[in-house]
């Protein structure tokens, strides 16, 4: 592991602990604010969508096909493990063609 790996763990740990502390000390007041309650509710879903979009923007046709299979699996099964397995299998199969 490089220094960058350890730095990532340290930064992620500090930010997560900081956000939990904010929740403990000021979360109730923030959730009473309609603006902040709404931002905190909507932002995570948008961010996950953005992460998927950024991965597909960097990928090729095999990624797009695998994403369609993963989306169908997630919709039908609602299981993260089945979705990962379905997406990975589709990616392997599509990579042999593209």
């Amino acid at each position, binding site marked *: *592991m*490089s220094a*960058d*790996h*350890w*730095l*990532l*763990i340290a*930064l*992620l*740990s500090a*930010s*997560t*602990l900081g*956000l*939990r502390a904010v*929740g*403990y000390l000021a*979360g*109730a007041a*923030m*959730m009473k604010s*309609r603006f902040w309650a*709404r*931002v*905190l509710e909507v*932002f*995570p*879903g*948008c*961010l*996950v*969508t*953005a*992460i*998927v*979009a*950024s*991965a*597909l*923007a960097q*990928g090729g046709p*095999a990624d797009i096909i*695998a*994403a369609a299979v*993963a*989306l169908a699996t*997630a919709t039908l099964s*609602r*299981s*993260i*493990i089945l*979705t*990962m397995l379905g*997406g*990975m299998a*589709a*990616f*392997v199969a599509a*990579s042999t063609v593209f």
Partner: protein
Amino acid sequence: MRSGLVAILPLALGVATYGLAFGILASDAGFSAEGIGIMALAVFAGSSQIAAVDQFLSTGTVLGAALAGAALNLRYIGIVASVVPLLQELPWPARIIALQGATDENFGLALAARKADAAVGGRFLLGTCLGLMAAWCLSTVAGGLLGRAVSDLDRFGIGFAFTAAFIAMARALWPGRRALLPWAVTFALTIILMNLGLPPAAALILGALAGVGADFLVNEDER
């Protein structure tokens, strides 16, 4: 505390399966089993760990990866706020452990148990936290060791595993039709910004903020 530990067992088994997969992926990104274990304890936020490791693997930048992981953890402000009354029943050392251990999986369970039985309190929450922490730490380390033992993970499609995990998370977070336009705006703008050459971390944060803005514009009357 024991009742919390027992109540969380079924969810802990699901978390362990997910943790095993994450450990294998983190190993592929260059993390040692020890590092994976330390990250599991020190961060203890599965989706954010996946986001950060995914961004680190694809971009190689530490700050962008940490920012993506931290942004996903904004929801912990609301989660922790909802269990503050339970946390305040615990002495400080146990309170800090439970504060670190409150996640998507157990806060709802603890609140539901308290609603059904007013005697359920902080010790129940602490039990659920300890059960989940043990499952997450042990399974991610086991995944890290397994990942080190198996070579050429690409032939199993490991390169797509993170994206598939995020698609599953998106499905779990889908709140209904009101998210359609905000998520579409986010998706389209992120791809446009990436194609314009913006760094991935900046593109996805800007894309997500645009989605939040779209939600404020189109869903104003629904809340």
